[in-house]
């Protein structure tokens, strides 16, 4: 927004109009907020006592939400590691020279990209038992996340590998490296670095998707909030319902914003090092090799 393209640097008349627009716009926004707050207050949702339960260790709520956050992150972390590793393998497989490797892997990737994640999770949770394999909610959720995201990540890695300058590959072959060495020593390291921001963005998606565990009854944040609500309802009615859901939602937003910030930070870093690398190519090819090998 630093350089407005769609409107001129405003003159006095336009400034006056924008000021009016600002006031009207701010009033509209405030009106919506006020309306929601009035409605909430009207239903006694804003009573401090209702919110204090979230921070009162005696009620067990903070501990329960903390545990749920851990189990959410656990699923997400395991999913991330396996999805990334399998995604790398599949990306390499899809670029294989052998038809019999390429074809089934392409089919596998396209299949999991086309099917909704929840269907994959249901298939693991509901359909596999029909074949004698009974998975826990945890395994079904993690498995679904891995299968779905490995396909998405494979495409991200493949795009990264294909975006590497053709000369890199040719030069590596020219040096006498084998096919596997060209891939693991030359192409993959560059592709991963280039795709790091997209990769982290996809991992944010994975973390968000772990909330699907709620539907199959895995105790992640959302399920925990729901069960706390069900626990409190007989004693207090739905006194804490709204607050608990808000808390679960806010925790998700907080964690995801942190991860998104990481993605932005990484994007800034890789951009800088790309520029540095680009500059070094012009100056001294040896410098770039050094920079590439020494980069963290």
């Amino acid at each position, binding site marked *: 927004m630093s350089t407005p393209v769609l409107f001129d640097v405003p003159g006095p008349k336009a400034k006056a109009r924008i000021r009016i627009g600002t006031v009207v716009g701010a009033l509209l926004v405030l009106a919506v907020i006020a309306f929601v707050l009035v409605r909430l207050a009207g239903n006694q949702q804003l009573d401090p006592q209702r919110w204090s339960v979230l921070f009162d260790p005696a009620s067990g709520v903070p501990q329960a939400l903390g545990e749920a956050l851990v189990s959410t992150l656990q699923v997400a972390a395991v999913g991330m590691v396996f999805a990334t590793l399998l995604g790398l393998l599949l990306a390499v497989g899809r670029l294989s020279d052998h038809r019999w490797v390429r074809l089934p892997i392409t089919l596998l990737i396209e299949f999991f990209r086309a099917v909704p994640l929840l269907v994959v999770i249901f298939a693991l949770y*509901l*359909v596999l038992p029909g074949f004698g394999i009974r998975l826990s909610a945890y395994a079904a959720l993690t498995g679904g996340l891995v299968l779905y995201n490995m396909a998405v990540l494979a495409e991200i890695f493949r795009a990264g590998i294909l975006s590497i300058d053709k000369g890199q590959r040719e030069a590596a072959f020219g040096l006498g490296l084998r096919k596997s060495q060209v891939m693991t020593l030359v192409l993959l390291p560059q592709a991963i670095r280039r795709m790091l921001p997209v990769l982290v963005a996809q991992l944010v998606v994975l973390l968000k998707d772990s909330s699907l565990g709620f539907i199959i009854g895995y105790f992640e944040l959302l399920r925990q909030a729901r069960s706390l609500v069900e626990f409190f309802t007989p004693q207090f009615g739905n006194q804490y319902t709204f607050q608990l859901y808000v808390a679960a939602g806010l925790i998700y937003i907080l964690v995801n914003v942190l991860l998104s910030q990481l993605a932005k930070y990484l994007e800034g870093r890789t951009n800088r090092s790309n520029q540095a690398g680009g500059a070094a190519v012009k100056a001294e090819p040896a410098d770039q090799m050094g920079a590439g090998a020494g980069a963290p």
Partner: protein
Amino acid sequence: MQFFVDNFPLLRDAFLTTLSLSLLGGLLALVLGTLLAAFRVSPIPPLRGLSTFYVETFRNTPLTVVFFFIIFGLPQIDFALSFYTGSVLAVGLYTAAFVCEAVRSGINAVNPGQAEASRAIGLTFGQSLREVVLPQAFRTVVPPLGNVWIAMVKNTSIAAGFAVTELTASLQRLANANAGELLLVLVAVVAGYMLITVPSAIAINHVERRVAILR
């Protein structure tokens, strides 16, 4: 084959529910997302702030949580919606954030000279956005919008967790009732989704080729 004949009504209804969820949610997302993108490039700071806040919030919230708020949260402020309406709203509001980002990237891709020229001939902000910038922006964002659409069709599956009998929920129901034919159930449900996504992908490619702007 008998399985498909027996369960055809359920599968058909489930498919139509998924389709109507997708269409209504998509319409809502398209209208709201475009409006948000217009806010985001407008000269009025509170509207810009509102739009940024909206997009950042919804992009970082799991769709399941959005569903939760709409279906279990809104009744707390006296807006009780049916599960179906709530699902349309959840999917639409969530997807609007992504539509906004796609359209905004399209607006950024329009050559600044176009906007400058339209201002030079005296068009106002609204006119230059409507007549010059947005039509070009939409033509460049056909592929990303297409991706958003296909992702949204798949996302409607979450409505299964909220008592809407769409395709994924029918999987759950059929899997419980037809233990012997689980694979067929799976095939039927997956085919239901593909019946929407594959023609969509072909149509998107076609439209993209038709309207692409060479820069």
